[in-house]
């Protein structure tokens, strides 16, 4: 089936990139506005095995941004993972797709042996937990998220970020993205323009940054020698810039994830 695919337009990614991407196992946690875009792009790229984890079914409020969703899905309350699976299979039927309609903590089987973990979850605390899982199983972690803040009257600020961290390198706490203040503030109120506001074009921009980061990490297209990345999106002025925060926040090697905290805590050999 691979022979029917024509990847000539992305052959600049490297001589072996087609096979590299076909051999890659990628897990996406959260198949809403951001995750559905990532699933679609990974399918176009030709990633060979895509794992999808999300407990939710679509509802009417998701239709403003969930790529691949239809009005019929809303009527039938289709699980978000099933919408993403249909989208992927529609693009490249040979891609192996594993889905779990569950919280990721109950589907970590689909994370442990992946090659990369995409986090598209709501809230800082969930990000912190998901990055912990990536560290525990020694995986690159690529996170996206957006927020809308009420300025004055009918004025709002849209902002978002794409962060990539690697085991052994600075984590989101080292970089100053996950702070105690933010975690505490989230306990009370996350976003103040309604319940977790999201829009399709910002989700799409952030997802594209995440997929670009993934391709840079897995193919020789561009020297991606940085051990971490934090790109900030100013959604109002429509520009992306590298965050300066890590320049000030990182103070030596990561101390948040001890090297001994690896693998299953109660591992038992099977059989």
């Amino acid at each position, binding site marked *: 089936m691979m022979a029917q695919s024509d990847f000539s337009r992305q052959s600049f990614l490297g001589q072996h990139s087609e096979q590299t991407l076909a051999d890659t196992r990628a897990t996406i946690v959260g198949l809403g506005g951001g995750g559905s875009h990532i699933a679609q792009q990974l399918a176009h790229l030709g990633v060979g095995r895509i794992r999808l984890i999300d407990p939710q079914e679509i509802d009417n409020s998701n239709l403003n941004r969930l790529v691949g969703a239809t009005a019929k899905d809303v009527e039938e309350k289709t699980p978000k993972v099933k919408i993403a699976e249909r989208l992927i299979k529609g693009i490249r039927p040979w891609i192996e797709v594993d889905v779990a309609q569950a919280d990721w903590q109950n589907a970590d089987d689909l994370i442990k*042996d992946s090659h990369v973990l995409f986090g598209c979850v709501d809230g800082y605390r969930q990000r912190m937990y998901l990055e912990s899982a990536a560290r525990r*199983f020694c995986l690159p972690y690529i996170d996206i998220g957006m927020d809308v803040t009420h300025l004055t009257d009918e004025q709002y600020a849209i902002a978002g970020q794409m962060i990539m961290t*690697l*085991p*052994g390198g600075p984590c989101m706490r080292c970089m100053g993205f996950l702070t105690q203040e933010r975690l505490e503030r989230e306990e009370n109120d996350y976003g103040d323009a309604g319940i977790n506001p999201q829009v399709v074009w910002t989700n799409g921009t952030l997802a594209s940054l995440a997929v670009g980061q993934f391709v840079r990490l*897995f193919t020789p297209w561009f020297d991606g020698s940085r051990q971490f990345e934090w790109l900030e999106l100013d959604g109002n002025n429509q520009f992306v810039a590298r965050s300066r925060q890590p320049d000030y926040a990182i103070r030596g090697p990561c101390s948040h994830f001890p090297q*001994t905290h690896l*693998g299953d805590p109660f591992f038992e*050999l099977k059989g």
Partner: protein
Amino acid sequence: MKTICRATGQFLKEVRRDLERPHQFAAERVGFISVRAANTSENIVLMAEGYHPVADNDYVDDPTVGAMMSQEAIRKALNIALLQSVGMFHVHMHEHNGRPNFSRTDLREQMKFVPDFFKVCRNLPHGAIVLSCDSATGRVWFNSTAVADISEFNIVDTPMKVDILNSNGNVDTFA
């Protein structure tokens, strides 16, 4: 079931740097990589946690092999497995590029000491790895008599390296 071995690029760089050091009389250096593990329904993932070089004075002067560990070196490695509940993988290096292979001597010697690790830590796999300058090959024991090839090495770095070996994941059992 396949076995995936995973380490950061920085970790492997430090292991290679140590193994490349000359020894007073041994032709090559050896050490142990301690691992922790995770199960999935399809695979076992081994994650490199620490590197334990064999001390200079724990080599035996034996010109018939590249490096011969003393009983004390093995005792120290067994001790780490026992006290830290980790899998232990013997490691050495062949200084060339491309996929390395175990020599017949390597395979014979592994059979002598790897099964002993199950006496002190039976819940984790143990084994042996040979590195080249840019690749690796490995064997994993699931108990004192069942051994398989490591199917895949993941080097978590920039760029990320996924090295899939032509292994079917089959386990060979021997008495």
